[in-house]
């Protein structure tokens, strides 16, 4: 991730990014949903985008998946500027390379079609298979690769599957296109805690085996640490702290990152009655100091950056 141009890192980096965002902004009227977002996605590595609801993480995902357009800034795909809409062929190539897994596994599969149909469609549309036999074989391998039994699952309909199984089908569907980048927008937030870990491990292994660039979006910083090598903490449309996950989580510098980490449920730290007012005030103060726009960035580690606090408007 080269949020700040860093000549040393750029020279030694062995792989070039598939997608790079440079100073992306997005405004909805008066609301600045994104302010100066810069990061890049590299094959075989996962980047986690962490922040509270409304901080702009999904807007980022939508821009990368080309469901939305930035107000300003540049977006590079394999080094080419793709900020403006290209020709039909270019757009198709982009969409083939970038696939998405959505938050709600219950709403993202069509209830009237079988699992097999959901996987055959992308295979055929993107010309990855010919003929019925070829398609069935590919569906079987895809289902196996996401840990589902092809014989039991292929003919089933979405309502016959559990949430976790549905999310696996969604991942298989994205993989059917043979993408280079997988954008997973809160893939586990609607799932039970007990099956989250399985989905996260699946995403990690897919990333390794297929050399995918993974963008993992979540509000749960604990799961981010399980999946991603690099992390970006966002607040109110700005990246407030980013860098190597280990470094950010063990040595958080920005007050908002600290707040986020302190709010992760810890069973051995029961709540103290009478403490709520203090915590609420503390959280509100941190939100206030983190909100103003700031251009200052401080480098605190070899790959660990913090945005300095801005002046209150």
């Amino acid at each position, binding site marked *: 991730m080269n949020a700040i141009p860093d000549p040393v890192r750029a020279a030694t980096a062995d792989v070039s990014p598939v997608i790079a965002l440079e100073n992306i902004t997005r405004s909805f009227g008066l609301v600045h949903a994104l302010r100066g977002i810069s990061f890049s996605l590299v094959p075989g590595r996962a980047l986690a985008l962490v922040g509270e609801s409304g901080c702009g993480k999904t807007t980022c995902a939508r821009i990368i998946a080309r469901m939305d357009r930035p107000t300003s800034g540049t977006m590079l795909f394999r080094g080419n500027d793709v900020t403006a809409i290209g020709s039909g062929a270019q757009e198709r190539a982009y969409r083939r390379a970038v696939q998405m897994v959505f938050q709600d596994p219950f709403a993202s599969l069509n209830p009237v079609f079988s699992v097999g149909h959901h996987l055959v469609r992308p295979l055929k549309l993107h010309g990855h298979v010919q003929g019925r036999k070829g398609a069935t074989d590919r569906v079987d391998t895809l289902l196996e690769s996401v840990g589902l039994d092809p014989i039991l699952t292929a003919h089933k309909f979405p309502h016959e599957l559990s949430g976790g199984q549905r999310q696996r089908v969604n991942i298989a569907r994205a993989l059917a296109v043979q993408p280079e980048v997988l954008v997973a927008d809160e893939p586990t937030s609607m799932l039970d805690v007990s099956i*989250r870990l399985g989905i996260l491990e699946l995403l990690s292994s897919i990333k390794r085996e297929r050399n995918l660039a993974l963008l993992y979006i979540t509000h749960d910083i*604990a799961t981010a640490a399980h999946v991603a090598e690099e992390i970006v903490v966002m607040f109110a449309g700005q990246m407030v702290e980013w860098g190597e996950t280990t470094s950010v989580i063990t040595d958080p510098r920005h007050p908002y990152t600290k707040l986020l980490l302190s709010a992760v*449920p810890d069973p*051995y730290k029961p709540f103290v009655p*009478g403490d*709520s007012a203090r915590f*609420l005030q503390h959280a509100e103060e941190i939100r206030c100091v983190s909100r103003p726009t700031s251009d200052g960035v401080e480098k605190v580690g070899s790959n660990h950056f913090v945005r300095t606090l801005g002046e209150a408007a």
Partner: protein
Amino acid sequence: MTGPLLQVRNLSVDYLLDKGVFNAVKNVSFNIGRGELFGLAGESGCGKSTIAYAITRLAKPPAWVAGGEILLDGHDLLGMTERALQTVRWKRIGMVFQSAMNSLNPLMRVEAQFHDVLSRHTGCTREKSRARAKEMFRLVGIPTDRLSNYPHQFSGGMRQRIVIAICLALSPELIIMDEPTTALDVVVQREILEQVVDLQKSHGFSVLFITHDLHLMAQICHRIGVMLKGELVEVGDVRQVSRAPVHDYTKRLWGAIPNLPTLGSMQGRLA
């Protein structure tokens, strides 16, 4: 007035399906004491929400209570007439559901929703209910001038706090919270639950807290019950269930939760 507030005895709830009867809750018994925060944990589909619905008698066909007793202060809720039940719901047992977005009426101002509940149960006037609503808003930390707003003008966390405020307006003895913060992010979740713990202490009501997040449950509850496929497999003090779980399933449930990795384990994994 010394016994437990709520006693659930040998409760069984079935669902009638095309393929026959599905036993969603099998012979479950537990007590909730006065002023106690009791947690019910388990994965989705284990029957924990079904129990919540059975207690408020909101279980509708194809679900029906196949057997057992639910005693509130010694009175069987399952045997009550619908009329008698109306004096219990909200007034003595409040309920906070998972999706705050959907439990407020989008067409009514928040103030009117307070009045709706208060006038129905206490017959109080608009002025009185407005005063009570203001008091409740102060309690959950929302500026009182926002009482005339509509639900969509509030954030998800605020809406969940409003639902809790409406719930508290009638000073119930028991509040059932079914995954109250699952849709919210961790900081907001922490803010709301810290408030619930505080209010519980100051108002003394009992809470039945339902969630699949054992870590969170261990932070706020006094006692925890763990459910597996309709059966209550372990009930115990929070310290015992979190530090020395007896049942195999409880141990696995603890192990399944993505935790914040420690420095050592992360270096090992990413190396």
